[in-house]
């Protein structure tokens, strides 16, 4: 049984102690920044299929597009998890939990950059 319901007020919202409002709002703005990152990744994937033809390097176009789209989806899920985890930690005066999101995104974008270099070396489009 999960306590998660996107349309009901999360029960943990009232657990523990109210943190300083500045921390709560900073956490919220961070969440929204990650959501914007996700939206940008999704937009890049759609732009790839709409505006860019295939590349000479076989499989590169597909790989880049799928990495961007999958990352877009993952970042949103992880962003919510991070936001909720941070808020709960603050309410119970614990250390903020670690999120793999940063490492995931850095790795993915490095891979995309590598593929782009290979695409250019293979002669572009």
């Amino acid at each position: 049984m999960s306590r998660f319901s996107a349309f009901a007020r999360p029960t943990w919202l009232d657990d523990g102690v109210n943190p300083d409002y500045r921390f709560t709002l900073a956490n919220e703005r961070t969440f929204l920044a990650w959501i914007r990152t996700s939206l940008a990744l999704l937009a890049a994937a759609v732009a790839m299929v709409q505006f860019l033809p295939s590349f000479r390097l076989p499989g590169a176009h597909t790989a880049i597009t799928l990495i961007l789209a999958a990352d877009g989806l993952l970042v949103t899920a992880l962003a919510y998890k991070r936001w909720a985890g941070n808020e709960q930690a603050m309410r119970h005066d614990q250390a903020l939990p670690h999120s793999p999101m940063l490492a995931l995104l850095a790795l993915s974008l490095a891979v995309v950059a590598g593929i782009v270099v290979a695409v250019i070396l293979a002669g572009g489009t």
Partner: protein
Amino acid sequence: MSSDRGLQVQRTTLAWTRTAVASAGLLGLLIRHALVDGGGVEILAAVVAAVATVTILVLGRRRGREIDRRLAGGTTAANASAGRAALLVGAVGVLVVAVTIRALTTSP
């Protein structure tokens, strides 16, 4: 203290507005894609993106007023609607993945 309060409300409202703008940008691309590619999945993606954009706009404005009110009363609470926003953007993400897979597999 009250000037910091005003600043906090402004920064948070701005963050929501910027998020709505980002969602609108993706919506534009999806609308174009649906017009060009006209499939059921494409149209659904554009519709869900439209719902997400409007929802983010509305949630942002409500949140601004809510924070203002709560800070005036000396408390604040975490945003109970963050989950809803994430779920909608997540739904858009799932549909974008479907749309891109479809575009990649049906290209000539």
